[in-house]
């Protein structure tokens, strides 16, 4: 059996395991073991990928395998990875494991929670390894559905509203996406022959430009909804703030990346001509996203809202970079996906941990936390610094690739867009430092705070897993950037 399929099978086996055990306390152990194995598998895949590349294999996709699934429509279960999917798999496995540990002591702990979480993980991993549009879409839907249950049941605040809104908006995106994917399918054999869903096969032909003009925007917007494309991002603040910790982590950390990944793997890779024609519209929208999200974050009072708007800004930068269609910017986009995934997951984990102690998320109701919970405080500061793009942490590497890539276009339009996007680094600094100043620094606000415990072992584990990734990418960026630069080439070449 192909090792990539393990990524889908392990979460499913974990679900079986959870069903067999007695209660939620055992379920979390099973999940932790399952995700631990998953993490190891993910790194074995990274290693296998690297060694095969080193051995001189220059195919676009490695570790491929394919099983026939639905003969008459030519649907296959086809999997394979390039550097980009490998990076996303590593990211997902880190975030999911961290998420399990972050929910170790959550209130209302239930077996069903972990089952839904594992189902979500199955969907995400399946999405990243799929090379067949139909199975990819199937996994995509599999990832979105458990979200409704998780937020609706274990959420906080107006959770039914938030869950409904999030699911409906994403489903709306899926509807567009489905039309787009079928459009690609029915145009996948313009010279006659057999229709196919296989991405690699389709990338070898040119879809008629009239069809592209229809289906590119549908696909791009369909994925864009999940990537928080302005003005279709409003599910994000409500959804994130109502979701339980682990779900916020997974959603902002990984699920939003499905959007960006889909945008370039499907929309742009398969329909490059239309992408070139229409990029300007989306560049305008994403430039707005970047600045607008950052300004929106400045005045928020709730920690999760701040982070949700910050995600709009940072994910806007991902889509912005993808649309720049050159090697540097697109490499930056993928690094930004990984980097944002790690740091926003860290943010949401920390917010959950702080909430568990202070029972509020309104920043003005807290203060001086650095003194009482230094471990969490320092981790929050580091996450904040990564978010504002401090050199030595992951955000900087991503942003510099993006800015230099987008500035590489010699025309005024791209350059002005770049400069507008650059202003976000200052605005980001404003809202990050504002939160740090109010929340962590200053005098201790409440004498009861002295009773707080600093991070527990499972919290530390969760934080350190994410921090390691952030620091590693920031300090030694050439590893990740090298893998991505090579793998992005086939996509960029099609776009040229």
């Amino acid at each position, binding site marked *: 059996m192909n090792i990539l399929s393990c990524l889908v099978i392990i979460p499913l086996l974990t679900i079986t395991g959870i069903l067999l055990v007695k209660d939620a306390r055992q379920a979390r152990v099973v999940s932790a073991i399952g995700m631990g194995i998953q993490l190891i598998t993910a790194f074995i895949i990274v290693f296998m990928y690297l060694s095969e590349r080193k051995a001189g294999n220059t195919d676009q996709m490695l570790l491929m395998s394919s099983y026939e699934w639905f003969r008459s429509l030519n649907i296959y279960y086809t999997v394979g990875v390039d550097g980009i999917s490998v990076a996303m798999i590593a990211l997902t496995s880190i975030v999911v494991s961290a998420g399990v540990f972050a929910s170790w002591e959550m209130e209302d702990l239930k077996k069903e929670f972990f089952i839904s979480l594992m189902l979500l993980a199955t969907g995400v991993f399946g999405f990243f390894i799929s090379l067949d549009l139909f199975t990819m879409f199937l996994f995509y839907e599999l990832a979105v559905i458990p979200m409704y249950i998780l937020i609706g049941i274990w959420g906080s605040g107006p959770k039914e509203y938030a869950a409904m809104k999030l699911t409906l908006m994403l489903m709306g995106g899926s509807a567009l996406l489905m039309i787009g994917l079928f459009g690609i399918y029915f145009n996948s054999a313009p010279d006659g022959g057999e229709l196919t869903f296989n991405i690699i096969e389709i990338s070898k032909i040119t879809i008629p430009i009239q069809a592209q003009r229809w289906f590119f925007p549908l696909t791009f917007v369909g994925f864009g909804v999940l990537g928080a494309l302005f003005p279709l991002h409003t599910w994000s603040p409500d959804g994130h703030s109502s979701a339980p910790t682990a779900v916020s982590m997974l959603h902002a950390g990984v699920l939003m990346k499905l959007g960006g990944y889909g945008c370039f793997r499907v929309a742009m890779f398969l329909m490059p001509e239309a992408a070139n024609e229409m990029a300007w519209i989306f560049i305008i929208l994403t430039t707005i996203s970047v600045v607008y999200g950052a300004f*929106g974050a400045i005045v*928020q009072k709730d920690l999760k809202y701040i982070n949700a708007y910050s995600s709009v800004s940072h994910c806007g930068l991902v889509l912005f970079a993808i649309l720049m269609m050159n090697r540097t910017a697109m490499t930056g986009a993928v690094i930004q996906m990984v980097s944002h995934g790690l740091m926003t997951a860290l943010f949401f984990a920390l917010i959950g941990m702080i909430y568990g102690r202070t029972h509020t998320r309104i920043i003005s109701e807290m203060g001086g936390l650095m003194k009482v919970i230094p471990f969490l405080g320092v981790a929050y500061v580091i996450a904040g610094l990564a978010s504002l793009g401090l050199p030595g942490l992951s955000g900087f590497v991503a942003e510099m*690739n993006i800015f230099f890539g987008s500035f590489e276009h010699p025309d005024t339009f791209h350059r002005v867009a770049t400069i507008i996007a650059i202003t976000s*680094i200052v605005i980001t600094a404003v809202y990050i430092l504002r939160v740090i*100043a109010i929340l962590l620094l200053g005098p201790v606000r409440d004498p009861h705070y002295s009773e707080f415990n600093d991070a527990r072992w499972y919290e530390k584990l969760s934080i350190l897993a994410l921090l390691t990734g952030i620091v590693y990418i920031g300090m030694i960026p050439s590893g990740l*950037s090298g893998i991505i630069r090579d793998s992005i080439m086939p996509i960029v070449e099609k776009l040229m």
Partner: protein
Amino acid sequence: MADFGYTVWILIVPFVTFIVLGLFGMKLKARISGLTGTLGLAIVTVLSYATAFRYFLGAGLADGIYQKIIAFNSTWLTLTDRLHIDMGVLLDPISVMMLVVISTVSFMVHIYSLGYMKGEKGFERYYSFLSLFTFSMMGLVVATNIFQMYIFWELVGISSYLLIGFYYSRPSAVAASKKAFIVTRFADMGFLIGILILSFTTKTFDFVTLTDLNGPAITSTGGAVFLGMSVMTWSMILIFVGGAGKSAMFPLHIWLPDAMEGPTPVSALIHAATMVVAGVYLVARMFPVYYFAAPEALQIIAWVGAFSSLFAAVIATTQTDIKRVLAYSTISQIGYMIFSLGVSGYGGPEGLGFMASNWHLFNHAMFKALLFLGAGSVIHAVHSNYMTEMGGLRKHLPITNITFLIACLTIAGLFPLSGFFSKDEILTAAFHHDKVLFAIEYLVAGLTAFYMFRLYFSIFHGHDRQYDHTPHESPATMTVPLIILAIGSVFSGLLPFNRLVTSDGAPFESHIEWSVAGPSLIIALTGIAIAWVMYRKENTLPDRLASTFKHSYKWAYNKFYIDELYLFITKKIIFRRISQPVAWFDRHIVDGTMNGIAWVTQTVSNRIKGLQSGQLQQYGFVFVTGAVALVLFFIYLIK
């Protein structure tokens, strides 16, 4: 050429101490962590001095010209096909000089802090941040390319943020650190955009290529013209914006006085001697490009420097917080250095301003660090920052008194102390360039002498105040650095800078121009004399003067209301006029539309759900009516 590969340890050692103290500092005894940090710095200092001696005494010379030596270089990240970010060590006269400056001051501050910060909570955190700062600053000065400089530029910014906010339970310190970071970050945005434009015009980040007289930056025609200036000029102006932010030039100076909330040794190290001169260093590093490819930018630099030096000197005469006086004095002196670069030419005696600027940077680092450390010793003794609460301290703090006096005489520029030489060269360079600028700097020289001696007399002369306990001299860990720095301030004027640090690496002859130096000495003495009359003994003269010039005094005392202007921009414009409307728009318009769509769907479905009532009579009625209507339709309308 000699091998300087070991210089990479100048970066590695402080980085390692930072990591060790940052991760394990809490577990160590405070004293051990302090000594670990100091030991690390001692190694760095030895390496820096060794490098300086070897470099200046021959190893750096080839054909009588000091060379740019790449001691170490390795690619860190590939950006585009042509551009890659390297990390390395570049040795040339200015970077080697900066190594000496940074390691000396940093080492002194490390020793001094052992006494000054004794018993503070977070001692190990303090030393770990100091190591981080030293690492970043060293990385900045030895950068082989402009992007490495930018990276370390950001890192010194964050070290400064962390150290200003060291007393983080004090709200004023938190606000000051935030302000410092955001203002400099804003300036850094200019720097980054400047780098973007520059690197895509010249296809390189590399300093050696950029400053090469036959290189792409200098020989290029300057690219397209935009708003009356070439793209090259724009990029160099934007890069200077970054420098102006770090060096606290008007109007980006507002963060520096507030930064005095940090511990005093930090002010001495970061906000007087090293980090704030990064802007000067940046312009000096890119000087050939400025001179040949962007002379308009150089003109702007000269005026910004001159204006800042005057502006800050005026404010300094009215402040009462001794650290703030020193902070404005720092702005003023850095203004001198920036200005001096602005009026300099290139090559040989033409490059007098360049040499003088670096010389003044060197001297200023010594005497301003001394002043701050002296001020720290005073604050340590009387537990106050306000000169109104001090007086007559010369009896209680003899060593501090003498070293502080030496520093004041040096900054006033009295012969034969070091400040005299460098200031004289700056004035000479200005004299040959522009008479208006020259006149401004003469005035500033007088003001400097006045406010420094106002400070000195108020602290050390006059009669004793009510102190909580009798002030006593600081421990040896604090006084020894004072003495060492005082010796440095006295003798650094004897260094032959015209042979060592010049614009093109070649030595040239320069001598004291007494026609310029004479009047400047007289002006300085006048300033001191006025201060003597006004502040030596307590009298009503200062108050009377203040009330005579009520309005101008008030403006200067309130720092010309620049802070209020900033508050207006940040609070009123950014927060109220932009961010809040954006947030409102998002919740009510964008989200409102989404909710509206949901509402419409729901309402419509509510309305039409009555059709599915389940009542047979209703279905029968609809069926029959429909059938009849269809029959009529077909009979009469379609025929």
